[in-house]
């Protein structure tokens, strides 16, 4: 603020605190609920906002499975988290590799129908996943890839956004750098490996973070094409714990939700330095 009026400063703080409260409160409630026992949640209305004492058992049940209070079986989240992790790693790595190479081809090579190819890739940006999900299911089913890691990740690898991002980045690399490399005797792939890849490091890191979260949060596609419990990602696991007719073990649900949030949060925190740098970096 340019003016220094205590009233305005106070007001801005109030607004910011209110914003933080609105965002953090549900998270707080979730953590609190995961530390209580199932009876405490259902029986006290409203639910107590103070942390309970059942954290350890709740998380153990959430991770490794066990018996619920009503006698039904709860599936452990640990194997589901593993599935989520694998898909959340394959998808960004596959996406980055493919889009980088596509952008490289589009920017640095002249071939027939080059512009047409670029616009076709661009046009697929207008197709949301839901539009093509039926046909994709058919293809994956006929290839026998249902209920596999490959089926979970491969259809989601092609990305117009990532190709576009890398294309825009490659266009900012000065032509003289390419010419200097040519004079030094570097062929196209050598140039790609020695010059483009290192220069793209921050873009790649930013893309990795975004795509990791995207891959981790996949719900619709796994819902459609996985059929056995050992291939469910953790986001599906959360939903399945909330039974319509049968009794819901809310504390376990909340604990699973917290577990599901942890890996993306860790990834973002670890890579946030590169994440911001990758989106605004223009250093040459």
């Amino acid at each position, binding site marked *: 603020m340019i003016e220094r009026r205590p009233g305005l400063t106070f007001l801005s703080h109030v607004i910011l605190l209110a914003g933080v409260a609105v965002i953090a409160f549900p998270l707080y409630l979730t953590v609190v609920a995961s530390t209580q026992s199932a009876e405490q949640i259902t029986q006290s209305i409203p639910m107590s906002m103070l942390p309970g004492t059942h954290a350890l058992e709740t998380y153990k049940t959430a991770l490794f499975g066990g018996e619920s209070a009503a006698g039904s079986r709860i599936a452990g989240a640990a194997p589901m988290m593993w599935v989520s992790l694998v898909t959340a790693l394959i998808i960004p790595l596959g996406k980055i590799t493919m889009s980088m190479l596509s952008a490289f081809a589009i920017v640095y090579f002249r071939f027939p129908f080059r512009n047409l190819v670029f616009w076709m890739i661009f046009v697929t940006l207008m197709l949301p996943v839901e539009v093509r999900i039926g046909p994709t299911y058919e293809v994956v089913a006929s290839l026998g890839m249902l209920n596999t890691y490959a089926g979970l990740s491969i259809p989601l690898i092609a990305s117009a956004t990532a190709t576009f991002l890398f294309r825009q980045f490659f266009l900012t690399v*000065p032509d*003289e*750098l390419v*010419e*200097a*490399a*040519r*004079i*030094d*005797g*570097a062929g196209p792939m*050598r140039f790609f490996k*020695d*010059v483009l890849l*290192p*220069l793209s*490091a921050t873009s790649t890191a930013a893309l990795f973070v975004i795509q990791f979260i995207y891959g981790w949060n996949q719900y619709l596609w796994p819902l459609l094409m996985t059929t056995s419990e050992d291939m469910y990602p953790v986001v599906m696991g959360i939903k399945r714990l909330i039974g319509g007719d049968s009794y819901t073990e809310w504390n376990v649900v909340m604990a699973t939700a917290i577990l599901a949030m942890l890996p993306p949060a860790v990834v973002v925190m670890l890579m946030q330095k590169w994440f911001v740098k990758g989106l605004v970096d223009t*250093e*040459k």
Partner: protein
Amino acid sequence: MASITLNNVIKIYGSGKTANQVIHGVNAEISDGEFIVVVGPPGCGKSTLLRMVAGLEEITGGEISIGGRVVNDLEPSERDIAMVFQNYALYPHMNVFDNMAYGLKIAKVPMDEIKARVAKAAKILEIGDYMQRKPRELSGGQRQRVAMGRAIVRQPQVFLFDEPLSNLDAKLRAHTRLEIQKLHRELGITSLFVTHDQVEAMTLAQRMIVMNAGVMEQFATPDEVYSAPASTFVATFIGSPPMNLLKNAPEARPGTILGIRPEHLEITPGGWGLSVDAIETLGAERLVYGRWLHGGGDELVIIRTDEGQAVPELGSTIHVTPRADRLHWFDAATQKRIVRPQ
């Protein structure tokens, strides 16, 4: 033997109706070890010519030979050349050592040899202290020296310079010019240097190619270009302030243009009349801008006078006499130099 031969070199962009010819048949023989400057106004094709020698542009017609070998179809890395770019073109993510070593690594030169060559070049260019720094940690002048170092370690037959001094400030430009001269004396490698600055051309060149709109107007030593320009373009391009060109000079044959340099007009009584328009004082000399009283009064003439001479009044009339042995005559139709029969 690192001579360069340009044999009727032609460059055309596009084809058919949209064809644009930018180089119209350049012919030149450059001997081993010569420092040749290609100079001309922006858009004259000098960079295009250099890039054709480098292999970064296709040669549409004619032949270019380096060291006796026709290089038309060779890749840049096969032509045994090294290039220094206007914007340095250093790899931003590599330190100075890696920048200089990159080309040698690709050529699979052994590491000891690489280190030795880099150390030697670093010594000549005085960049030994910056080996571990990245380009963004260096000043413009330092970056340019690293770029030159990268060229030197390749030990090429030919150095190509593409306006390397244009991004430097005036003082650094003068300093780097001297360094390039020193480098050429020490290494003696055939060099092709492109610039739009005629001062750089005059000071660096052993011979220079003056280009205008894709045509080579003159290829001669700086002295010859200055004292015997082959066309009105060369006459006014080289030399600052430019040569005066007069269409209506007294005693001139019709259809000719008289050229006389500002320093060869003396203010004497009884000469040609001028009315003084403006005076610029440069310290060591003065520039007097005047208009011919003869022939319509609209041709501008510039005269150089020493600090010792009297300063003419603005608006007054002065008389100048040209030095008789410094007259240049050009044909008005072709703009080319006429050698007057004595």
